[in-house]
């Protein structure tokens, strides 16, 4: 009993305060977004803000229940919880209600529940459980396979529900893996992939390949430290390429593609040098490998883009990278969102004074595009403060995760961080046109019961684990 009375002292009041501030700011903003004079009370249950009030109250009740649950059981029942939610998520595919082309909802009377939202904390629990076992080594192939299975299976089901946004969120657990020791190349490769992906859609492939070859030669120079060989390599590349291209041209047939010529030439040059005089063969091979992989990746991007992505996804990406500019169609949302935020100016138009959001110019303004209201009504100052508030909240979560003595709690904490961070980056990024439009809510801020409940559960399990941290002395 002593332990339970201690909770008021051990609980992290800062996290809870940040949570409450964000939730209440979200609610007030929602009020401003859908405000109309006929329903001017914030607790009007016919309006979204009235309903959100109910969601907030119920979330607080859920939070309290979690705080008074023994965290031991949460750890104990991690796998069962995961399996139950996996089954429910799967059942949505069969019995769910289709809304906006997504089959992601259960309808129980007036209540609409999106099970995939709850899948997030279920995965976090399962991963924490699995990765906190004794003698866990992340680079063990079996472990990697199980981790992949735990995330990819629900991801796949949610993909089938056509809720691409939520599915992508599950990829965010890569941060957890990174923190737990996954090679940093994962992040590096992810970055390179994104850069290559975008540039290969924007810039002709030949230019990318030339650039890549040049980058490799420079890298080679740096690691080998031999200018002579750099020049030999460059010379060989140019000579072989010219020769191949010339022969091809003379024979007047187009069997040899010019990229292919270039590729062969560069490879030959590199291999010659590598075999000729090698000081650090490991680097040479890595560079060659990187070059080949990048070039292959560049070519596959086109294929993936044209054959794997759906037309609306293609156009969202095209819109983002500026290849198309269809302000009435695909680009409408983002354009209106930018107009709303951009018109806010330094201090904004004032509470309830926004015209773009209030008069419905921005679609999905209470859920995915709620940030527009902040931008429009509270300007640069308000939106920056909100971003800083989120950053503080996220850093606080990391801080708490790091102070855990129990691996389970720490891993779970990073899971919480990953999901909230990913939502935050994507949601804000799409309203200011820095990432493609992926319809996911701003945690604790957007309108929506499932989302608020799920994020509250996600967070408060962690708060509870943290409050109980002294019980699990390592």
């Amino acid at each position, binding site marked *: 009993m002593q332990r339970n009375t201690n909770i008021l002292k051990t609980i992290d009041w800062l996290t809870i305060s940040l949570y409450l501030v964000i939730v209440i700011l979200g609610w007030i903003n929602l009020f401003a977004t859908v405000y109309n004079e006929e329903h001017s009370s914030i607790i009007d249950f016919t309006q979204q803000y009235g309903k959100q009030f109910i969601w907030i109250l119920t979330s607080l009740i859920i939070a309290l229940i979690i705080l008074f649950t023994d965290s031991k059981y949460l750890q104990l029942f991690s796998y069962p919880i995961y399996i139950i939610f996996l089954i429910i998520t799967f059942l949505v595919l069969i019995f769910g209600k289709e809304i906006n082309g997504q089959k992601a909802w259960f309808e129980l009377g007036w209540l609409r529940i999106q099970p995939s939202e709850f899948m997030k904390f279920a995965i976090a629990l399962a991963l924490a459980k699995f990765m906190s076992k004794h003698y866990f080594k992340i680079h063990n192939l079996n472990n990697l396979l199980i981790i992949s299975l735990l995330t990819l299976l629900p991801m796949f089901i949610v993909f089938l529900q056509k809720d691409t946004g939520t599915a992508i969120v599950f990829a965010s657990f890569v941060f957890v893996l*990174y923190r737990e020791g996954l090679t940093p190349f994962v992040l590096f490769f992810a970055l390179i992939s994104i850069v290559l992906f975008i540039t290969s859609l924007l810039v002709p492939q030949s230019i990318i390949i030339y650039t890549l070859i040049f980058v490799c030669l420079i890298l080679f120079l740096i690691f080998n430290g031999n200018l002579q060989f750099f020049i030999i390599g460059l010379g060989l590349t140019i000579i072989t390429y010219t020769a191949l291209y010339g022969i091809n041209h003379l024979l007047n047939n187009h069997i040899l593609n010019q990229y292919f010529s270039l590729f062969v030439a560069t490879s030959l040059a590199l291999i010659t040098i590598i075999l000729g005089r090698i000081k650090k063969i490991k680097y040479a091979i890595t560079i060659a490998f990187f070059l080949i992989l990048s070039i292959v990746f560049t070519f596959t991007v086109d294929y993936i883009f044209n054959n794997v992505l759906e037309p609306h996804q293609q156009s969202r990406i095209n819109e983002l990278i500026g290849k198309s500019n269809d302000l009435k169609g695909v680009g409408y949302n983002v354009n209106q969102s930018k107009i*709303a935020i951009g018109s806010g100016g330094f201090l904004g138009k004032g509470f309830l004074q926004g015209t773009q959001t209030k008069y419905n*110019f921005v679609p999905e303004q209470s859920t995915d595009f709620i940030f527009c209201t902040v931008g429009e009504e509270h300007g*640069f100052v308000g939106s920056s403060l909100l*971003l800083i508030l989120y950053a503080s909240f996220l850093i606080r979560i*990391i801080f708490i995760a790091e102070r855990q003595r129990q691996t389970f709690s720490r891993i779970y904490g990073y899971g919480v961080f990953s999901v909230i961070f990913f939502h935050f980056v994507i949601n804000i990024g799409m309203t200011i046109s*820095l990432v493609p439009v992926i319809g996911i809510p701003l945690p604790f801020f957007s309108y929506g019961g499932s989302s608020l409940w799920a994020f509250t559960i996600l967070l408060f399990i962690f708060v509870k684990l943290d409050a109980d941290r002294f019980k699990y002395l390592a």
Partner: protein
Amino acid sequence: MINPYAHRKYVIISIIITIVFVYISRLFYMQIIDDSYKYSAQNNSQRRVTKYPARGVIFDRYGKILVYNEPAFDLMVIPHQTREFDTTDLCNILEVDRNILRILLKKARTYSKYKPSVIIPQLSLETTAILKEKLYKFSGFFLQARTLRKYPKPIAAHLLGYVGEVDDKFIKENPYYKMGDYIGISGIEKTYEIYLRGKKGVNIYLVDVHNKIVGNFAGGMFDTAAVPGYNITTTIDMELQEYGEQLMQNKKGSIVAIDPQNGEILALISSPSYDPSLLVGRKRTKNYSLLLKDTLKPLFNRALMAKYPPGSTFKMVNGLIALQEGVITLQNSYSCNNGFSMGNIRVGCHPHPSPLNLIPSVQYSCNAYYCNVFIKILSNRKYKTTEEAFLRWRDYVLSFGFGTNLGTDLSYELKGNVPTNDYYNRYFGKKRWSPLTIISLSIGQGELGITPLQLANYACILANKGYFYTPHIVKEIHNCEWDKSKFKEKHYTLIDSKHFEPIIDGMELVVTSGTARIAKIDSITVCGKTGTAQNPHGKDHSIFIAFAPKENPKIAISVFVENAGFGATFAAPIASLMIEKYLKRYIKRKDLEKRMLETNLIGK
């Protein structure tokens, strides 16, 4: 246990901070540096609705309304605000074909995606009522209140002119006007456009995404009121104008009546005319092309634009020049043997006492007298050559306002034609022409082209004994300072005032005992002169000029009736009836009036 990967939290925190920094920079750019979003937001949510002022009302000289306004609504569209809508529904309401609607929308889009364009102007009140209820369905469309011209009586079409939409070219030169604005195209509507149009106002509304008005922008702080156009009192006597149009019905020609004491145009009739309300509103374009096709040319303002030889009415000009040049005296008389013969030239005349001097020459309109006088003028020893004498003659003629623009406030006034020496040099060859060659000028025939307005002005000059005021149609612009000095100025001819006395006596005799006894009015001394203009295309034109009363004249008038024969047959009685109407307000000569009203010279 020390976690080997604990340092990685710094990497993750760095990522958070980097991204938040990038986002804040982006916000800084969007919200503070780049202004374009603010304009876009205004375009999105503000709708500027122009408030069109009512055009000024136009009154006659006694304060009777000639034209006023009635409300109408235009359907407008802002193309970039349109969304998918039920075209069939809109077409049914508007009663237009789908393809036509499509073309209209395309035209609006070409003009501007962000500025409003008129789709259908001047909807009927029923259509407006239906549309108002359904307008929420058609995002991007709205109704714009306008006013339309309304005429209490179907008269004075040429004088008042009409109003129509401005064209693209005009908009480019005059940025005050926007597509769909109205502008005076002819008549007073054109010449007094800047006074009549008033000042447009604007209401700035806030609209939501469905184009529904949700309130006033900034509480209406930036709204401006429409200022109605100035009302104008014209110099027209509406009753006289109407009477003149009735007299001229089924006849081609024109009547111009001017108050010689100030140049105020009392009536200006061009026949055939049309009902001015035909050129109002949606039916304007259709009616306009119908009127344009009419072989009788109802749109053609004969009073200002038709050039006729003045015929015998011109004789007094030659008489006056001869007196001024001193080549004749009042006593000089010439005989007439049923005309004038010299060389192989012969100008016929009608029976009358002979020989006669100046005053009876006017009374009987003797051709031979004026042929002799004209030869005297052009053979004047004062001038070395005929050409020089002719140039002097021409200066005199121009001083009467012939062959020049009088500078009235009426639109599309033409100069007419007084032949030049160059013309004769070209036509006959230098020094190859003599007074005899151009003898037809003596009796107002030949190359002379005079407009009815110029002839009425000439009647004013005779009435005033040598000067005229620029004829004009606007008496007063209400509550407005405007420069009317140009209508207050006396324009003198090159003839001394004293020479007019005998001419006027002759003109009095024309009516009392000369060629136009039919024009005589009891108790009013009318001075007049008949004219018959030879017309190569058909029967002669009947012409009459007159002023009355002889002392202190109040009205000067010219009447042309095309293809009606002698001046005395139609023009003189019509002029006389007009004078009686104006001075007495009542016609005693009912038989004459009835005959004039019933005569049909068009034959349709």
